[in-house]
């Protein structure tokens, strides 16, 4: 065989090497890695570079050091955006966890109409958020607000109701409500899956040992569902802190930036205002918090995967 044309043995050894799982294995992973490096890794680095330059859409820009970060930090709208991002992140996440756990327990047992209620229950999570938020805008819109109409009818508000999207605190409440409304079904179903995985005899044993429901909840159930809840919480926090769809559609950051959040402000400055460098700097202010949350998530996952 080796006396045949020169190329043949070389080809064969190449084919042999490729069929060996290790080379083949890395080859199979390569496209995913290339995709991720090209369209996540590279833009991330490019974004850091933009934030250190005075790049605009019109001009390439030169290096200005940390000027963008310093300028942005003195901007009152930026301060409002940081404050609101944190408030929305913390309040909405707390509400989501509480409701998700409570509803998961409600759905754990059988009850009449469970099937149809489950379908209705997950609707908020399944419909694209931009479309449901526009419905909320129509529900909250000043003159025609059906929310006001109903709250006045049942006596919770007096005429003419609240200007939901035009007043600072109600507008924040509306943003937090929509964000929570949307995320709870997924949270509840994730927790429910965790609860269903708990062997009933574990809980039964605790009951026989005389544990009350609170003790069973905190000593038996929480430790079992905590890992999944923790991951769901970290993920949700990452996405809530960086989300802009609800704010963009519902309030546009208004009234007068009272519901402004970092992602939306980065969009206004970086894209609408064409100041790529400053916009990138605003977005990058999210990075330290995200980095901490991401590392926490990954360490947790790695531990569960036994690494």
């Amino acid at each position: 065989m080796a006396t045949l044309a020169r190329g043949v043995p070389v080809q064969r050894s190449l084919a042999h090497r490729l069929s060996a799982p290790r080379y083949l294995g890395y080859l199979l992973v390569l496209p995913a890695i290339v995709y991720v490096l090209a369209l996540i890794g590279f833009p991330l680095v490019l974004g850091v570079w933009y934030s250190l330059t005075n790049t605009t859409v019109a001009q390439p820009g030169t290096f200005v050091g940390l000027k963008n970060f310093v300028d942005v930090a003195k901007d009152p709208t930026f301060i409002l955006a940081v404050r609101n991002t944190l408030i929305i992140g913390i309040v909405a996440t707390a509400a989501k966890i509480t409701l998700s756990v409570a509803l998961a327990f409600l759905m754990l047992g059988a009850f009449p109409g469970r099937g149809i209620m489950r379908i209705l229950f997950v609707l908020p999570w399944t419909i694209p958020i931009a479309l449901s938020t526009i419905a909320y805008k129509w529900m909250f819109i000043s003159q025609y607000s059906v929310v006001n109409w109903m709250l006045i009818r049942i006596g919770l508000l007096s005429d003419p109701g609240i200007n939901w999207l035009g007043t600072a605190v109600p507008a924040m409440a509306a943003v937090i409500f929509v964000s929570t409304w949307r995320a709870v079904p997924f949270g509840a179903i994730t927790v429910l899956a965790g609860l269903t995985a708990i062997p009933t005899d574990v809980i039964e044993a605790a009951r026989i040992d005389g544990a009350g429901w609170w003790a069973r909840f905190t000593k038996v159930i929480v430790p079992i569902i905590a890992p999944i809840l923790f991951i769901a919480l970290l993920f949700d926090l990452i996405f809530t802190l960086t989300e802009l769809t609800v704010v963009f559609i519902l309030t546009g950051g208004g009234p007068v930036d009272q519901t402004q959040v970092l992602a939306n402000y980065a969009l206004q400055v970086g894209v609408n205002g064409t100041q790529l460098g400053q916009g990138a700097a605003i977005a990058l202010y999210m990075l330290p918090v995200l980095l901490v949350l991401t590392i926490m998530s990954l360490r947790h996952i790695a531990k569960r995967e036994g690494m």
Partner: protein
Amino acid sequence: MTHAQQGAWTRAVLMGIYVAITAFPFYWMFITAFKTNNDLYTLANNPLWFNELPTFGHIIYLFQNTRFSTWMLNSAIIGVCVVAITLVIATPAGYALARLDLPGANQMGIAIFATYLVPPSLLFIPLTRVVYFLGLNNTIWSLVVVLPTISIPFAVWLLMGFFKNVPREIEDAGLVDGCSRFQAVMQIVLPISKAGLAAAGMFAFAISLQAFLYPLVFTSSTSVKPVTLGVVTDLIRGDIYYWGELMAGALIAGLPVAILFNVFLDDFVEGITGGAFK
């Protein structure tokens, strides 16, 4: 009534109240979509019910006077392409990382998954320039290329979990029977993992339909927008919101997605809780 029956009814009532509140926006979309403008904007009317005969006027307007059908088509094309790209790239990666005993496979899996946690709001500004340099600015292909960055990392992770759960003996039996590894994967491993593939594909589809920020910054012409963006930007003229058309559009675009999601929901939850985090 027994204690257990009481408990069941209490659950039903509490769930009923919660669902009545959270499903209200869908009722509101529905009733607005079929009300005449006169009915919608007469403040003395009961907003919760029809005060005039229902109309198909808003839906007809949507299809005849706006680019709604183009937006739906754009979304369908983007969705199908994103699912295809995601599965073609993530399936081999997920299989190799789960099955081929690569040194550092788990770390690579986690590293790929970590990129899922890099949010679009951190990337969209530089990506507008990348999309521009690729010549994809203001085309649906910008979204076909960029949206898999969200779905691939998650799908790799999800599929890794699924492939790990396929018993090795089954695959080895195929190899012994004379299948090549490729045949063993195609004929044995993939069919067993179809719940995982369905979940990954469904996830990719949902991502492409849910996306808002990327469409917002990459597409500006009416004719290239996906439906979620078109509805909320192009049915508004200046300060005038066409609420009847807006709600009709949200309903028609949103409902199929919601139904599809419901069908795949159990696979999806299994993928997340059973496949990945077990």
